[in-house]
């Protein structure tokens, strides 16, 4: 089929779904709404698959489908088309978005069936898919930005879906505004690039990107990429703009799975991978990205240790995993980052949906302290969650293992990497293993701590089927990119992933190290891998010991770390800090600004002017005494003054 039509269907099918559901948003017919929405996304998925197959059939060096629908903005030398590109990177993204999206839509039918706003919900979800597709397919930064803001908008709407609750509405607002801070930087980044290269088309930008390294911190490319990265920290919840993501869990759980785990939050990583030639040219930016990524990975994982809300744990886990991805792209392992993006989409969507299934089965209970032993009530959910758990902690041969290992190896060995990055990555992995095991233990295993009134039940098939599919993907998804060191022992599986992405990833200029001397360092790679896997296993077992074998241990440990625990439990008081240091002062000073500038200065000036005039009037009036002799006196004085002036001067 014609690519243009195919992409049009891909994009517009969710719009049609959105409109169909949107105009009848009051309806509570969840079957109809769900079928329309799921169908719409599924159509997109079919299109994505077709496009992907087309792409595969093309020669490797020309794998690029670009279409233009119309000219969007054309002013001076700025020409932005409504143009879309399917290439190696975006094809994977659209597959993830529509594929995982379809599953999550399907799941939502079961999850949301009792909600009155179900039609509206599906409309938003479709709108999100549309914007996300724009984001990944857009051929220029500005088109990408359309989707970039669009998904932010949908996220705002979906987080605040149950808007009657003030806190939830506030969470949506927080997400949007925090994202906007990043977006502002993103806009500046675009400006710098446009002024430097004269285009915003990403293909052209990549081609124009300097092949030499820009050493200065103030170079155009460095600044631009830094600004874009700040945009990414907003969208992808990295330090310092990560604060919105945990709050975003206020939305329905499938939303968290789709937007805040699988797709939207990875937009920042995607953007960096898409513009990798630019970022490669700016090692300083890469260093910042890697550092922020590593720091986020560790910091969020630490918070994850202390959370009791099942979704919050997963949320911090997401932040932490996103940190991993940024660590990967920061050290130049774009392929690994992309792969982790995909595997994470599988297993984190799985876990979120799983948690949704749990919450659904527990009648909206989210506190894991009130769960336990759910294994026997929800076997399917438990089993699929187990797969997700194994994947995320990086159990060998599960999908997360491959991607995480690739990242860690690159963090160590890449010319842009270093031992410290590797250590941070390993610490993150250890912590992840601990809190994920803790989550499993408290939720599914051990003794039941259920409220007597709660009768958990396994979810319906419509919810479990997506879980199962995602579980399968979580298990096998990693085999698309088996590292060479392992692949050679598994019947020489080639690393499809690297081959696929190779044409669009520019090599780091001094990257001969890995490529040519890989064999020499095979031992090193094995030993690093072994170390990390061993540490992760020990950590998981420790958690198992803490929460299953000796359930009281965690309490003791918590007591030892008293204040530190408190500090971590409150997310380092970052929210409080932002409020005290930024938001409240701004609001307060605005009040003062209005009061002193508008009311007390500008208006007062106006009144003063009026008062001066009126004062003059009062003086003039006071001269008008009614006494005619006084009037004659004015005439006399006038004569004297005039004459003295006229004659004497």
């Amino acid at each position, binding site marked *: 089929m014609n690519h243009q039509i195919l992409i049009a269907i891909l994009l517009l099918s969710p719009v049609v779904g959105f409109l169909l559901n949107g105009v009848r948003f009051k309806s509570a017919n969840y079957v109809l709404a769900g079928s329309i929405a799921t169908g719409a996304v599924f159509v997109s998925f079919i299109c994505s698959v077709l496009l992907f197959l087309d792409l595969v059939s093309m020669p490797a060096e020309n794998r690029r489908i670009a279409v233009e629908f119309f000219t969007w903005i054309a002013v001076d030398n700025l020409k932005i088309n409504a143009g879309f590109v399917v290439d190696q990177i975006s094809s994977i993204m659209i597959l993830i978005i529509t594929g995982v999206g379809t599953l999550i839509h399907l799941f939502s039918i079961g999850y949301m069936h009792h909600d009155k706003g179900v039609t509206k919900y599906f409309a938003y979800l479709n709108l999100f898919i549309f914007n996300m597709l724009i984001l990944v397919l857009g051929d220029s930064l500005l088109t990408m930005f359309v989707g970039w803001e669009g998904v932010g908008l949908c996220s705002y709407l979906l987080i605040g879906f149950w808007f009657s609750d003030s806190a939830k509405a506030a969470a949506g607002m927080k997400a949007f505004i925090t994202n906007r801070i990043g977006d502002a930087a993103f806009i500046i980044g675009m400006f710098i690039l446009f002024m430097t290269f004269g285009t915003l088309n990403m293909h052209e930008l990549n081609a124009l990107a300097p092949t030499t390294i820009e050493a200065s911190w103030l170079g155009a490319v460095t600044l631009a990429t830094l600004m874009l990265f700040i945009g990414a920290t907003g969208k992808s919840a990295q330090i310092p703009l990560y604060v919105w993501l945990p709050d975003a869990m206020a939305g329905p759980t499938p939303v968290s799975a789709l937007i805040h785990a699988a797709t939207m939050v990875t937009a920042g990583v995607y953007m960096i991978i898409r513009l990798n030639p630019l970022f490669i040219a700016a090692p300083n930016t890469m260093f910042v990205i890697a550092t922020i990524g590593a720091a986020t990975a560790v910091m969020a994982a630490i918070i994850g240790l202390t959370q009791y809300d099942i979704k919050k744990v997963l949320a911090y886990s997401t932040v932490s995993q996103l940190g991993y991805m940024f660590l990967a792209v920061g050290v130049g392992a774009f392929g690994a980052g992309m792969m982790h993006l995909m595997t994470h989409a599988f297993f984190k969507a799985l876990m979120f949906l799983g948690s949704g299934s749990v919450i659904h089965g527990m009648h909206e209970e989210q506190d894991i302290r009130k769960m336990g032993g759910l294994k026997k009530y929800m076997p399917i959910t438990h089993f699929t969650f187990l797969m997700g758990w194994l994947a995320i902690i990086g159990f060998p041969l599960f999908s997360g293992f491959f991607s995480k290992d690739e990242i860690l190896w690159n963090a160590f060995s890449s010319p842009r990497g270093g031992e410290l990055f590797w250590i941070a990555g390993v610490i993150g992995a250890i912590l992840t293993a601990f809190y994920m095991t803790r989550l499993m233990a408290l939720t599914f295993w051990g003794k039941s701590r259920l409220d007597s009134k709660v009768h958990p039940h396994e979810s319906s098939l419509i919810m479990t089927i997506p879980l199962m599919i995602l579980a399968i993907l979580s298990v096998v998804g990693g085999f698309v990119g088996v590292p060479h060191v392992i692949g050679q022992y598994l019947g020489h599986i080639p690393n499809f992933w690297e081959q696929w992405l190779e044409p669009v990833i520019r090599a780091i200029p001094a990257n001969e190290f890995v490529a040519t001397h890989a064999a020499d360092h095979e031992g090193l790679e094995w030993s690093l891998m072994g170390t990390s896997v061993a540490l992760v296993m020990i950590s998981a077992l420790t958690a198992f010991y803490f929460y299953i074998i000796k359930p009281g241990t965690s309490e003791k440990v918590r007591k030892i770390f008293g204040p530190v625990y408190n500090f971590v439990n409150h997310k380092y008081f970052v929210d409080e800090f932002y409020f005290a240091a930024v938001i409240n002062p701004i609001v307060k000073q605005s009040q003062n600004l209005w009061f002193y500038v508008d009311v007390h200065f500008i208006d007062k000036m106006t009144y003063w002017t009026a008062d001066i005039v009126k004062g003059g009037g009062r003086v003039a*009036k006071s001269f*008008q*005494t*009614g*006494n*005619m*002799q006084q009037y*004659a*006196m004015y005439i*006399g004085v006038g004569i004297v003054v005039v004459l003295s002036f006229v004659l004497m001067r």
Partner: protein
Amino acid sequence: MLETSFLNNIGLEHYLVLSAVLFSLGMAGVLLRRNLIVLMMSIELMLNAINISFVAFSKFNNNPEGQVMVFFVMTIAAAEAAVGLALAVSIFKRFKEVNIRFFEHLKG
């Protein structure tokens, strides 16, 4: 010895000074006196001072026009006096009062 020639040679200046003095006196009358009738008399005084200067100029410039003007001025003065007195009478009839300090209702 005291210079007294200015007393013997009466020139234009003398008339003008006289006129000015009279005019000033008239002005002072207008400015200071309270009685309406006196006020009108002061104005007459001013007009007469003007007449003096007209005549003086006429004499010293050898231009008879000035003396004609005096007649005009006198006529006007008479008319003015008539109107003024009429006003004064009507007011006195109404208010029994010719002190101008009484008329200070209009002000501000």
